């Protein structure tokens, strides 16, 4: 099973960003929860060539607006 090692940068927010493993790649438009906060993915890039079971992804997110 592939493992997606994801670098997440949060634009326009005080959140420092995160690195974590995911079981599937992030998709533009979907929401990602980092601890207690939720963010929306606005950009996804392949960061490095895959190695073994690992895929290396970068995602840029923005804070989700409260309704």
């Amino acid at each position, binding site marked *: 099973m592939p493992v997606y090692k994801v*670098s997440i940068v949060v634009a326009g927010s005080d959140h420092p960003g995160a690195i974590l493993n995911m079981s599937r790649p992030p998709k533009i438009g979907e929401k990602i929860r980092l601890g207690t906060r939720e963010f929306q993915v606005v950009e996804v890039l392949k960061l*490095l060539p895959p190695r073994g*079971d690992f895929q290396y992804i970068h995602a840029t997110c923005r804070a989700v607006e409260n309704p």
Partner: protein
Amino acid sequence: MGLLEILQDVELFEGLEQGEIEQIALLCTERRVAESEQLTTQGEPGDELYIITEGFLEVIIGGTSTSQRRVVVNLGAGQVVGEMALIDQGPRSATVRAIDEPTTVQTIKREAFEKLCMENNRIGYIVMRNLAADLSFKLRHHNLSERD
């Protein structure tokens, strides 16, 4: 999920065979970290590596006062913390604390880790290569966070 399955999904052990991961598993001790509990303190000595299996840790650098401190990244499942002290034997480069409940880590002592790498050079080579790749990934993440 069992410990062997957890370790197979950690990049640090990518390329190791099942029997080699079983040898690594023998070095691991599980530790649950309460929210806000510190795992490491910047400037203090350290002789352990941590593998996050659940939850999130935040990595903080800066001075002793709150105004000088800065959270540089949050690390989630599958990530490694404390690897610099394991490699260079220097003091902890950052303060690390849990920001999620539950947060669980697997702890590996430097002495036991070095002994295994010396006894089995294949394990030593692969794990050290993967440690270098992990440090490189963290540097790339930092560069991307400075992009704007």
